[in-house]
Every structure is written in C-alpha cells, then in structure tokens.
C-alpha cells in the first residue's frame, strides 16, 4: 500500500473489451511524480484504450485505475483537477478562438474565476500561442491546434498528464519543441504518453512500457546511466581510447567515425561530452541511441507475429 500511495497512477489488472474483442488485458502499471512513461506499441496494441481509461473517459471492464490511491471510477470527480488529457485528435471547439476555448477549459477544470486569466496566459506563453490566441481555431495549422490541445491539458496544473500521440502530424521543428515541453512537464508532473516514434520515447521518457495486443510485453527504465549514446568524432579511435574515459563503461565502433558508447552508472552525459572535448577527439555529434529500445520493440513485434502465424 505504501508503494500505491506514493504512485500518482496505478493500473491494477485492468482489462477492457470493445466490440467483443479484448483490447487491454490484465494490465498493471505504476507511475510516480516526476516520471515520464512512454507507452509504445504497434497500431491496435491497446495504447489509446489504455490512455482513455487512465484519463477517466472509458471505464475498465475489470481491474482498477487508482489516482493517488483512490479509484478513479468510484470517484470520477478526481479527474477534474488532477488529470490533464490530450487525445489523439485534440478536442478543440474550432469555432472559438484559442483564448476563448482555453478560458472555458480552465473553468471546466474548476479553476476559480480570478485564476483563469493567469493560467491561460501561462499556458499561452509555455505553448507559444501568443500570435494566434485571438484567431479562430479553424484557421490554425495542425501544429498550433496540437499546441492548443496540449495547453488545455496542462492549464489546471494537473498531477497526471495523459498525452495520446502528441507529436502526430507535426513537422520536425514542431516535434522537437513538443519534446522539450513534455520533458519539462516531466519535472513537475507525472506524464504518460503514447507514441509510435521511438526517438520521442528516448528523448522524453524515463520509463517505457511496450504493449502488444493489449498485453504488457515489456516495462523498463530509460535512465541516463542505462542509455546508450551515439557519437561522431573526427579522429580515428580505438575502443581503449574510449575506455580510458572515466564516464565510459563500454564502446563499440559502428564505422570509422561513429561509436556507440555506454555510460558508467551515475555518469552524466555532460561528463562524457566534457571528457571527449578535453581529449581532443573532435566531437562532431552526440545523441541518445535508441537502438536498444528499437531492438526490444522489434523483437516483441516479431515474437507476436510468429505466435499469430
């Protein structure tokens, strides 16, 4: 119970059938404040149904969804102030302006009248909506509509933020900005997001859960000390050159200039970057390597395909 009380969100043996088909089966998940959980899965894996249950929109057939230790479907009013939800299609009342819509959302989420204007101003700034705040939402691009959708999900400062494919349809620049926002939200809130895009998970998430056909097939951490990094350097190096760096636990050459490097437990990416520069390796690129996650994801998909065959 102590663990449950510490969790903002806990799913206990949650199952849901839709149109006679089991879409989510016996799902167990937990999420604590300050964590970003990435929900991965191919189409039809049950991600959206899971998020709808977490958001209070769709009741499970069996099992419990606990928010701060209380059953969300016994006390649905908990969702009002404590959950923010961005569905795959942002629920915008397009005939209104972004500002009008956000004011309504703030009141709907129970903000006091005097708290509405500061909350709306804060999310407009955070989601960079200042230029379009008074424009009817029918005239907004997909990226801005997505940002308005995100703004309505966070404007009441909920403990839990639920994002269903938040980067869907965004151009690369918008997707990067969205990642930054999600990452920053993860410092203060608990965030659960679903996506098809593995780099989004690597960039934003602390933990990952992979669903396949409604079942949880993998759940694990993506902490910095377990992350692999991919670097491009100008100099020709040997593995021993990398192992000489105190932050490095292992190094593997991809080609002459690209390396996959694993960090020592507790080492920071900035420690590695500083050491590489100091040794004059000629650092040209450094990024998180999503290949290990990709391999897990593909292995699960392949196993499931084999089972189906």
């Amino acid at each position: 119970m102590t663990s449950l009380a510490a969790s903002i969100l806990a799913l206990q043996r949650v199952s849901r059938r839709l149109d006679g088909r089991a879409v989510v089966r016996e799902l167990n998940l937990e999420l604590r404040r300050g964590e970003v959980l990435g929900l991965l899965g191919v189409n039809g894996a049950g991600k959206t149904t899971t998020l709808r249950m977490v958001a209070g929109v769709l009741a499970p057939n069996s099992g419990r969804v606990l928010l701060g230790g209380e059953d969300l479907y016994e006390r649905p009013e908990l969702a009002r102030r404590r959950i923010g939800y961005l569905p795959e299609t942002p629920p915008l009342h397009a005939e209104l302006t972004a500002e009008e819509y956000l004011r309504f959302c703030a009141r709907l989420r129970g903000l006091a009248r005097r708290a509405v204007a500061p909350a709306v101003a804060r999310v407009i700034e955070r989601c960079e909506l200042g230029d379009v705040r008074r424009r009817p939402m029918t005239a907004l691009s997909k990226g801005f509509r997505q940002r308005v959708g995100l703004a309505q999900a966070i404007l009441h400062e909920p403990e839990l933020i639920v994002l269903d494919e938040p980067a869907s349809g965004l151009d690369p620049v918008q997707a990067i900005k969205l990642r930054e926002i999600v990452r920053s939200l993860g410092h203060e809130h608990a965030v659960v997001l679903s996506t098809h895009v593995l780099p989004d998970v690597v960039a934003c998430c602390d933990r990952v859960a992979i669903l396949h056909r409604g079942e949880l097939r993998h759940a694990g951490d993506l902490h910095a000390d377990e992350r692999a990094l991919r670097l491009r350097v100008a100099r020709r190096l040997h593995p021993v050159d990398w192992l000489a760096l105190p932050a490095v636990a292992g190094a593997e050459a991809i080609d002459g200039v690209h390396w996959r490097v694993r960090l020592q437990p507790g080492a920071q990416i900035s420690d590695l970057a500083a050491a590489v520069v100091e040794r004059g390796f000629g650092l040209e690129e450094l990024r998180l390597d999503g290949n290990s996650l990709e391999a897990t994801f593909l292995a699960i998909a392949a196993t499931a395909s084999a089972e189906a065959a």
Partner: protein
Amino acid sequence: MSTTALIARHEWRRLAVQPFAWALAAIVVALVAWQFLLSLQGFLELAPKLGGIKDAPGVTDLVAIPLLRSVSNLLGLVVPLITMRAFAAERRAQTLSLLLASGVGNLRIVLGKYFGALGFVLALIVLIALMPLSLGLGTPLDLGRLGACIIGLALFAAALTAIGIVCSAWASQPALAAAAALAISSLLAVVDAGARLQGISNAGINYLALPTHLEPFFRGLVASVDIVYFVLIVVVALALATRHLDVLRGRPD
C-alpha cells in the same frame, strides 16, 4: 457558477458564433413576421364587420393566438436543427472527450447541453412573442390568454429540446439526430390521430399526444396535468441521454 451553467453558457456561445444558428433564427423570425402582418391586415379588414356583434372575437383570438399556434408547428422543425449538433457533432469531431475527461458528471453535461440549446430556443420564442404583444400598444389584449399561450409554447419547446438532445446523444451524425428528433416529435403529435377520428378523446393514447396538452394553453387553460406531461417528457429524455453517456463511457451497471 455551476458546471451545468458553465456548459450551458458555453453551448450558447458556440451557437452564437455559428452563422447557421443566426440564419435559422432570422428565417424563423422573418416567416413569423410575414404571417403576423398578413393576419393583422386580415383583422383590420374584418374589424368593421365585428363591431356590431356581441362577444365578437378580438385581436387576441384572431391574430395573436393563431400566430402562436402556427409557431408551435414551426418549432417542431426548428428545434431539431438547433439541438442536432449538441452531442452528435462532438462525437463526429471527436471532441466529446473534453467533457468526458473533465470529471464533470454525465447528468451535468447533459443538463448543460440542454439548457444551452433551450436558452437559444426560448430567446427565439421571446422574440416572436414580442410581435403579438406589441399590439397592446394600440389595442387591449387578453394578456392572461397570451401568457398561457407563451407558457405552453415554452413547455412545448422544452420538451422538443429534450427530445432533440437525446437523439443527438444517440446519433453519430447531426443530420441523423435531427431526423430522429423530427420523427419522434411528429409521432408524438399524431399518435392519437386514429383515436380522434373515431371520436375518442380521453383514452390513454390521447394522453400521450403532444397536442392534447398544448391545446389547453391556447384556450387560456394552464392545468397541472399538462405541465406534468411536458416535465415528464423532459425528465425521461434527459435521463435517457445521461444513460447513453454512461454507455459511451462503458461504465458497468
């Protein structure tokens, strides 16, 4: 402000920024105004002949009440067009999750949608009622009968709006919701037609019919049995709409 009032005001605002609602209101007011002027002209031509008749019908009987009676027929067509978007358009645009995820109970959501649409319909009735009431500036009116008519129209509109809301909750397309609301209200209008043809006017089937309960208001009678009938329709329709939202959420019984 309660969440019901908040949602109702928001619905009103959404209707107010749509050209469709204003165009519909303008067409209705123009049609009624035209009919009002024709009736008034007919009355002015007839008035000299009525002078010598004892207890002759006045402007209330010959202009105001027929006008409001014809408005009741018009409402049967107009109200489904106003209510059709309430839930069906939200489901089609996948925006209903905003309300469903807000932690606001289903009954409050339904009541908010209902009062938002009803507010628009009642505003239309008030606008229309000003036409016959304006005759009071030049001639005495039977304000008691006119008041009863307006109360009857408001109750009738409240029942039609509730029927429209439940149809919008059931249907996935606004046009389908409007057609279903029109079909149900038409059925309630003619459900006792067969019985009436056979001269039966006090059977159970007559109680079900909308005109049975609307007509007394046009005669100036405000009876609790008629008020209860309209209130019952509203309660049943809104309960069914709420129940349907429960089903959409998949809440176990």
